[in-house]
């Protein structure tokens, strides 16, 4: 269970979050969507306790920032081991399990700066998995990935949520959000504009992106009979 009491976060002139309250229960995959600058990343950072006055809960909450990268050419295993810092250990079983869940066990000795973008994303996810948190906060874990890799990561997150964890994901790709999430939160101007099942929120989200459904959206291909 993660809960954010009504929170405002002002940085200089701009209001990042405007009296936003949020909570999510275990077992759910929540997609946070909205136009650029709507406050999606700020919501995630506030949930991670990184706003002024916030307190991170490192052992329970794993936070993966947008475009996460490693400054150094760590091995994939060493990178995943960073997820054990909150527990003060290097539990090899938790690390091996995380690498396995993310499908990168075969890369565990490879250097992170020699991998493809998709492999780096998986290694970063493995870092979050290695913590064995109750709550995952992931900021665009599928950005710049090809569709196949994006779908693989989303179905991994779906399985994770079904196993009783709470997964909150910022997504740009609406079709991934509607397909995998069981709850969709639309952010606009630092507020939560809509929060419900994906098919209910979807028209509002499309409007927020300036699209009209059925005209600008690509029609879905029907499966072959």
């Amino acid at each position, binding site marked *: 269970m993660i809960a954010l009491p009504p929170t405002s976060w002002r940085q200089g002139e701009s209001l990042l979050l405007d009296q936003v309250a949020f909570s999510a229960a275990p077992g759910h995959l929540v997609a946070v969507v909205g136009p650029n600058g709507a406050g999606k990343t700020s919501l995630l950072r506030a949930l991670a306790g990184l706003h002024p006055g916030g307190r*991170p809960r490192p052992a329970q909450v794993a*936070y993966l920032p947008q475009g*996460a990268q490693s*400054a*150094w050419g760590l091995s994939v295993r060493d990178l995943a081991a*960073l997820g054990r810092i*909150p527990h003060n250990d290097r539990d090899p079983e938790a690390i091996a399990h995380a690498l396995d869940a993310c499908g990168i066990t075969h890369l565990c000795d490879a250097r992170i700066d020699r991998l493809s973008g998709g492999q780096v994303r998986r290694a970063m996810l493995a870092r979050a998995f290695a913590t064995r948190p109750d709550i995952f906060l992931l900021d665009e874990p599928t950005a710049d990935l090809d569709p196949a890799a994006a779908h693989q990561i989303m179905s991994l997150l779906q399985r994770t949520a079904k196993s009783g964890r709470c997964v909150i994901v910022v997504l740009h790709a609406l079709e991934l959000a509607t397909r995998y999430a069981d709850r969709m939160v639309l952010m606009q101007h630092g507020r939560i504009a809509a929060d419900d099942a994906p098919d209910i929120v979807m028209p509002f989200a499309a409007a927020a992106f300036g699209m009209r459904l059925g005209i600008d959206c690509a029609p879905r291909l029907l499966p072959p009979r």
Partner: protein
Amino acid sequence: MKLLWVLLLALALGSLLVGGAGLGLPRADILWQIRLPRTALAILIGGGLAVSGASLQGALRNPLADPGLLGIGGCAALGAVLAYYWGWSAAFAPALPVASLLAALAAAVALLLVAGRGGVLSLILAGVALSALSAAFIALALALAPNPYALAEITFWLLGSIADRSLAHLALAAPPILIGVAVLLTLGRGLDALSLGEDAAASLGQPVQRTVRLAALGCALAVGGGAAVAGGIGFVGLLVPHLLRPWFGERPSGLLAPSFPLGAALLLGADMLVRGLPLLLPLNGELPVGVVTAMLGAPALVVLARRVGR
């Protein structure tokens, strides 16, 4: 790791046997008054510089970081130059190292005040500003030097040397260097977390502000203590972590401890070269060791740069 300590021990024993009095075991007073302080200073200063470089590179997530980049070395030099300039060092010999150490600490405090809560980037910018400022004031002091002797003395000091240092110098430099290195060695976990960026490190429960501040302060002590008695010795802090990465991996915490023996061995080796050269070549006196570390360090960095590019 063990190998590095063995190398350092071998060099240290060798260092006691090389000097102006020729090769071989010297008289007891030469051993105790000249070669022992010089060897111990080379070990402490080289090790301190290397550990400072390794922790700054980790804290700033930048392989170019070096104690010189943050202006700590520059301000230590400025403190010493001012002590020369105003004649404090002529009136009272320890004034120079004390002024230099105080200037290094003042630089660290100024850095942290200017950088405030702004994080790593503002710390680097403040450091660059500080080193430019100290370089300008050093140039001014040189231009306005009261007499040519002072000018020559300041210039030579700026080049960096550990020749003719006594046990008193050692007693002055050792405490700040050892305290600084001890502080830096505790930062491993925080530096590891920082390699993922400040947000991720904070979400892993690491105190980012505190880690970066302690890194700056530890460097000020370790570098300031060295600069106070030896002047400006460059390249050791920048080079040593790069030499270690192919062997120890790139994890910042894994580089802190091995940096000490390698930095110490590097400076000791360079200083033995400085002492040995006049025995082989018809040189008029010794080269400053700072010149030798720069002459060895620059090509080594070029080689590393070519390898990184591939």
